């Protein structure tokens, strides 16, 4: 079994090392503990030793190279072993790490082609130096953020992939309703319509979304040209209202990270039950869950469900949640009225209708005015977190990022959890720091323990 030789961290502060001299050459037999190379660190010159015995099969860095800690610099193994896979990955990372790390098989063939090309070209020392250093961080073949799930690939139909690319959506972030969890056309269309995760950000168990560019490896065609775009009414309105907001409204921002494990599991089992009911389409999305939880949290923090009224603060008698929807030339926020008084399934159905009408430009003014609180979700587009601008006269807006699997510490142990970052923008005339934080705490507590919602 081949062993990778990496630039070891020879001192606690070391970030990179310069390969001064190889002490072995390809073909040499080494034993555990033998010195393979001399490396210059931030402190002193030190030796890199072989971790196991074996034959030196490949030396992938050259003398004089500056290599980041953790980067692959050589391979030990058996004489007749095939190490091409390891070498290829190293070659790819050296030559053109602009293509994302070998995220998963089954992605666009263009990505696989790029990888094959890159390794075929083989690492040239001159190109290697800066490229290696710059790319090393993301190029390690064992990158823990790779999508090597048990199945190892994104199941998505050709049609769905095409539509997603066109819309700039990262399919890795969607969950599929097709056979075997395949992402199909309707999942992508739902994601586009809601501008947020009707398809849920990466709810696949065990699937960590790729850190690659949005669009899963297939970049949009380069297409710059001087062009004057006339403003649509929507664009004018968005500009006017948000200038009115960011100017006079003193924004401050509260961020927290929420564990979505239980909420996603609950949603999944709820949808399974609904499917069995044969409702023909009733399905609860993550966004619907967020709307409901936000409404419940607002009911318990009426000071957030309020508006600055010049000489008073007006608290509102119902939680009317604005749902930000991306539409072809902009953005609109239809309102889900009295979300505090409606159940999840009803919210899901109404939201679906509102989003459909938003997309087809069939909303009437009463549909998109009068919200008391808004939610905007860009998790679908590969965004981890962001700050949104408050829609006046509301006092706050919640910006939701994507749910990703990441390591967290629980009881002193490192475990893998599905985490979602949210940032609430608050109007400081209405909401103070502690007030906003209390609301966010309730919001998070409800999502992390969804069954408490019904108790």
């Amino acid at each position, binding site marked *: 079994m081949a062993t990778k030789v990496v630039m070891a961290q020879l001192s606690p502060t070391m970030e990179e090392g310069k390969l001064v001299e190889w002490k072995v050459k390809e073909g040499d037999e080494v034993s555990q503990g033998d010195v393979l190379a001399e490396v210059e660190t931030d402190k002193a010159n030190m030796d890199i030793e072989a971790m196991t015995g074996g034959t030196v099969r490949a030396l992938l860095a050259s003398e004089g190279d500056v290599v980041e800690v953790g980067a692959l610099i050589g391979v030990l193994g058996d004489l007749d072993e095939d190490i091409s896979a390891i070498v290829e990955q190293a070659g790819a990372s050296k030559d053109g790490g602009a293509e994302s790390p070998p995220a998963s098989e089954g992605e666009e063939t263009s990505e696989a082609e790029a990888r094959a090309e890159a390794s075929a070209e083989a690492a040239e020392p001159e190109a290697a130096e800066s490229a290696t250093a710059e790319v090393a961080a993301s190029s390690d073949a064992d990158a823990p953020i790779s999508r090597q799930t048990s199945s190892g690939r994104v199941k998505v139909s*050709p*049609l769905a992939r*095409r539509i997603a690319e066109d819309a700039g959506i990262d399919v890795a972030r969607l969950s599929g309703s097709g*056979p075997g969890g395949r992402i199909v*056309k309707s999942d992508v269309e739902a994601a586009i319509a809601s501008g947020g995760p009707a398809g849920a950000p990466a709810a696949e168990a065990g699937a960590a979304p790729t850190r690659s560019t949005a669009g899963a490896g297939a970049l949009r065609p380069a297409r710059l040209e001087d062009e004057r775009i006339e403003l649509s009414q929507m664009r004018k309105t968005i500009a006017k209202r948000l200038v009115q907001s960011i100017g006079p409204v003193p924004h401050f921002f509260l961020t927290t990270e929420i564990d979505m494990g239980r909420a996603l599991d609950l949603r999944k089992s709820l949808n399974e039950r609904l499917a069995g009911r*044969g409702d*023909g389409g009733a399905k609860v999305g993550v966004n619907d869950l967020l709307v409901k939880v936000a409404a419940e949290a607002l009911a318990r923090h009426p000071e957030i469900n309020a508006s600055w009224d010049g000489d008073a603060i007006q608290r509102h008698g119902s939680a009317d949640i604005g749902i930000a929807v991306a539409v072809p030339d902009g953005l609109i926020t239809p309102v889900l009225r009295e979300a505090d008084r409606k159940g999840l399934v009803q919210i899901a159905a109404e939201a679906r209708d509102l989003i459909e009408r938003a997309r087809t430009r069939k909303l009437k003014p009463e549909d998109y005015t009068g919200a008391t609180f808004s939610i905007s979700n860009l998790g679908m587009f590969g965004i981890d977190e962001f700050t949104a601008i408050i829609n006046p006269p509301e006092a706050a807006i919640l910006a939701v990022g994507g749910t990703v699997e990441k390591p967290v510490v629980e009881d002193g142990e490192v475990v893998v959890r599905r985490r979602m970052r949210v940032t609430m923008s608050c109007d400081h005339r209405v909401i103070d720091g502690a007030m906003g934080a209390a609301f966010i705490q309730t919001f998070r507590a409800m999502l992390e323990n969804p069954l408490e919602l019904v108790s």
Partner: protein
Amino acid sequence: MADSYDVVVIGAGPAGYVCAIRAAQLGLKTACVESKSYEGGYGGTCLNWGCIPAKALLESAALAQNLKDHGEDMGVRPIEVEYDMSAAVDRSRFISEKLTGGIQYLFKKNEIDGIEGRGKIVGKGKVEVTPEEGDVRELEAKNIVIATGAVMKSFPGFEIDGDKVIGSREALGLRKLPEKMVVVGAGYVGVEFADVFNAFGVEVTLVEALDSLVPLADPEIGKTLARSFKKRGIEIKTGTKVKSLDRDASPMKLTVETSKGDETIDTDIVLMAVGRKPVTDDLGLEELGVEMDGPWVKIDGWCATNVEGVYAIGDVAGEPMLAHKGSHEGIVAAEKIAGVAGHPMRYDNIPSVGYCHPEVATIGMTEEQAKEAGYEVKVGKYPLTAHGRAMTAGHNEGFVKIVADAKYGEVLGVHMIGYNVSELIAEAGIARALESTVEEIAAHAHAHPSMAEAVMEAALAAMDRAIHI
């Protein structure tokens, strides 16, 4: 044989027997009740008096027609050809019997109790079986699946008497051929029988009320088929309704209504191919409160009726009344009962095939339907006139047409008429099921020379990249 089951399926046609086998595979204790009715038996209408014997006769017809059309140029010149319909029928019966026996074997293999008799639901979880001879038994069933199928139907004044006015059942056993025959109805059943009897020398007139043959398909298909039939001497009367029949006259006088007025046609036999009606009488459905949808039993996407524990599949449960649709419903129902159901039935990707010559095969939306659904449509049509394999077969009439979405290349529908196209529709079905686009179809190196290549060419045509036209 115990009398208590997890599932009792009433009817052992393609829907029922498949359901029973799937249920047994999933570990359910299963019984399948079969009444061996006039049009049924193990394997249902399909194996006994439908699909299978019909296709056997169609092969005989193809051979007959091929000798006529190509004996000379293909270098196989029969000095004298004798047509023996009785022998052709014998062969079809032989095949039918073999397959029916096969079902019984499969039941044994899967430990399914095949119970002969007429089934009736007599209460919640109770099925009463009345055999031809012997005692009536009552079965206890946690779940009941109704798979009683359908039978031939006709019009008032044209009641099937089995002698002068016949349906598909009699047509498949017509050992003695008449001189003249009128086939009423030009759906797949009608055109198939017109093909068979014309090939065996009968003077056939094909009457259809709508404006084209196989009127539910792409209109170009109907036109192509009509042209081919006319060349063979089949008289075609579309836009023509049957009005009345004088059975006592000899030959009989059939009066039809055309756009130009009434006409009378002399005929020895009238073959009614105007559809089938589901078998729902005396099943206990009314007493149980099972909801109906027109003449069919109403079901949801999991083949469940409104009554808990009662399912319906196949011809009795709705259109399209096709064996493969029934079989799939059988699987969905069995999986739902067993609690392992994956996805509900989808009815938008069921292929529809006519085995006349040239064959017809369609799936998905027609151009018209796609436009109505709001798609920007791009059609790729590849005519078979210059297609290699079709020419070697001596059958190069027809075309393969792909209706695609102009924006993403989604395969919205595939419509074909030509040699062996029944075999080509599976590729179209898979492409649609997997949401492949015309690009994927075109990107696959289809074997050459094959009829399947024509699908690839049509996909290329849909991208304005056809090589061979």
